[in-house]
């Protein structure tokens, strides 16, 4: 692979570049990607392209095929069908070469709990054959980045979940990868730890690192992803920017109405006309509409008295639940 200067890769449309400049390099390109485990089809003929510098998200409930897709991109899991190019190379033939330019943050941490924080970074750098001195410099930067500098010489075992997660991310960055793959980076973390991680990831994105993220947190996807796909049962249920998805699969606003127990079924039929779509949940009625205030005024005019009301903007969560259903998937 020839080394193209960063500026050209990340800003193809920058003034001064040749007219009709080459499209952004595809970091990952998949066509008809399939993953089977025996009879079970985990990933069912999906196509996607992830561009240089992009932050791409795979959303979906548990078992939707996100992790299987990620493992194929990481060249750890062989394809059952279709074609896949990562960093312009074939995972089956060039797995180790691809992985040497990739940072991988797996769902389950694989830190050495008995070694110190710093040693975990040092040993990982050795896998990439970086000189000790270079690893040490890089490790110091990364510990700073992960806000773990003061824990550098502590053992990993007693660290909090958020710290371990940040260390795993720091470790994945030791080789200065072009592509960072994060499988559910913040699952199981408290809100403070999540926000700190988002801030760190956002910084990486600003620096031009291509991020591929799986998550089932919609706020995370909205924060981090330029573009995302919603996966369900191994297929893509939808694809686009967060805004596009909201526009395509939801309305601008949502009115949430809460009535006295038992009232929902009685009131609901009369409200159908007020919204593009209505959803009756055990505890609330949701009205999907572009003008929430108008709909709410109409509800009042009809004489219904709700216990509580809320007009809010549509979120990815609405899209997600509409596409993948509300029933629990396990």
């Amino acid at each position, binding site marked *: 692979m020839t080394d193209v200067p960063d500026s050209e890769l990340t800003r193809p449309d920058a003034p001064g570049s040749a007219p009709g400049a080459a499209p952004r390099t595809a970091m990952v390109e998949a066509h008809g990607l399939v993953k089977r485990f025996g009879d079970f089809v985990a990933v069912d003929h999906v196509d996607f392209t992830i561009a240089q510098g992009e932050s791409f998200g795979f959303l979906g409930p548990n078992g939707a095929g996100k992790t299987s897709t990620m493992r194929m991109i990481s060249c750890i899991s062989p394809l059952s069908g279709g074609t896949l190019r990562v960093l312009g190379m074939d995972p089956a033939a060039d*797995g180790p070469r691809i992985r040497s330019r990739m940072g991988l943050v797996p769902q389950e941490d694989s830190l050495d*709990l008995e070694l110190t924080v710093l040693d975990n970074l040092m040993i990982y750098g050795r*896998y990439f054959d970086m000189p000790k001195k270079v690893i040490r410099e890089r490790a110091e*930067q990364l510990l700073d980045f992960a806000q773990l500098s003061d824990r550098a010489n502590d053992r990993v075992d007693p660290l909090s979940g958020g710290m371990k997660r940040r260390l795993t991310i720091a470790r*994945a960055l030791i080789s200065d990868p072009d592509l960072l793959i994060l499988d559910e980076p913040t699952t199981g973390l408290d809100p403070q730890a999540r926000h700190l991680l988002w801030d760190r990831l956002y910084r990486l994105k600003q620096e031009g690192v291509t991020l591929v993220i799986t998550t089932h947190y919609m706020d995370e996807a909205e924060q981090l992803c330029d573009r995302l796909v919603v996966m369900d049962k191994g297929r893509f249920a939808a694809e686009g920017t967060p805004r596009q998805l909201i526009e395509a699969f939801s309305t601008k606003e949502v009115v949430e109405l809460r009535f006295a127990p038992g009232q929902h079924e009685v009131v609901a039929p009369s409200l159908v006309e007020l919204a593009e779509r209505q959803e009756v949940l055990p505890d609330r009625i949701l009205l999907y509409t572009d003008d929430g205030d108008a709909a709410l005024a109409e509800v009042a005019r009809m004489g219904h008295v709700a216990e509580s009301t809320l007009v809010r903007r549509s979120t990815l969560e609405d899209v997600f639940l509409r596409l993948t259903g509300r029933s629990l998937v396990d």
Partner: protein
Amino acid sequence: MTAVSGVSGAGASGTEAPLRGRADRGAATARRCSTPMWWRAAAYWAYQYKRTWRSSVVTSFLIPVLYLAAMGVALGSLIDKHSHGVDGVTYVAFLAPGLLAGTCMQIGTNDATYPVMAGFKWMRTYFAQLAGPLSVYDVLLGHLAWIAVRLSIVVTIYLAVMAAFGVVYSPWAILALPAAVLTGIAFSAPVSAFAATQDKDSSFSTLYRFAIIPMFLFSGTFFPISQLPTWLQVVAYVTPLYHGVALCRDLVLGQVVWADLGHAAYLCALVAVGYAAGRRTFARRLVV
């Protein structure tokens, strides 16, 4: 492109240095291909060993000292008085190379059971290694290479202790170093292949109870297998430890015969078969 100095105390966001300092890329790329992938995996285990090397070295020294003093010298003097040594040498001289091979078997097995389980389950080391540029085979080969390094350290100390006890009879003994390491790896290779198929460590105690400990006792370590009933002699003869013991003993005592090549070949074959099996079981566990 300038090097980025990222050394600062608490990272105040906003003034943080960029992480995409590419200055180190050149250095890393220039060195690429210089260190074999499997050796990088072995470097991990060396790192781990740094934590415990002191106690490990002390143990490696104490075990032969205690065994040779108690069984070799004390018990041996009784044996020598009644039967004028074993196979023409004093009991301690007979015992020492046997114990050397037996110790290598134990270490070779030990290092290929619980640490392998940790690599897959408890610490997920192998998965971490696989996230970098290493392949499944590098991961396996690296671990075996490290076990060989560790065995070499133990065997060197053992041979030094044996020399101090005056039971090294021949310059051939220098070849007992690779021979003893080979004996250990002849266990590590197949045992790590087996460990990769296991989901719980309880099978390891079964392995010790029914294979390793009986082998340690009945494969010619403490007495010549000619003392056994004929059918047990046959069983002892097929055990890998018998061949390791015979090879080490012949080298240390300077009684080298052509059969020793056969012993070495048998052990090499075990390493080859074990490694081939390990490639399959490791791949099955790591690549899904």
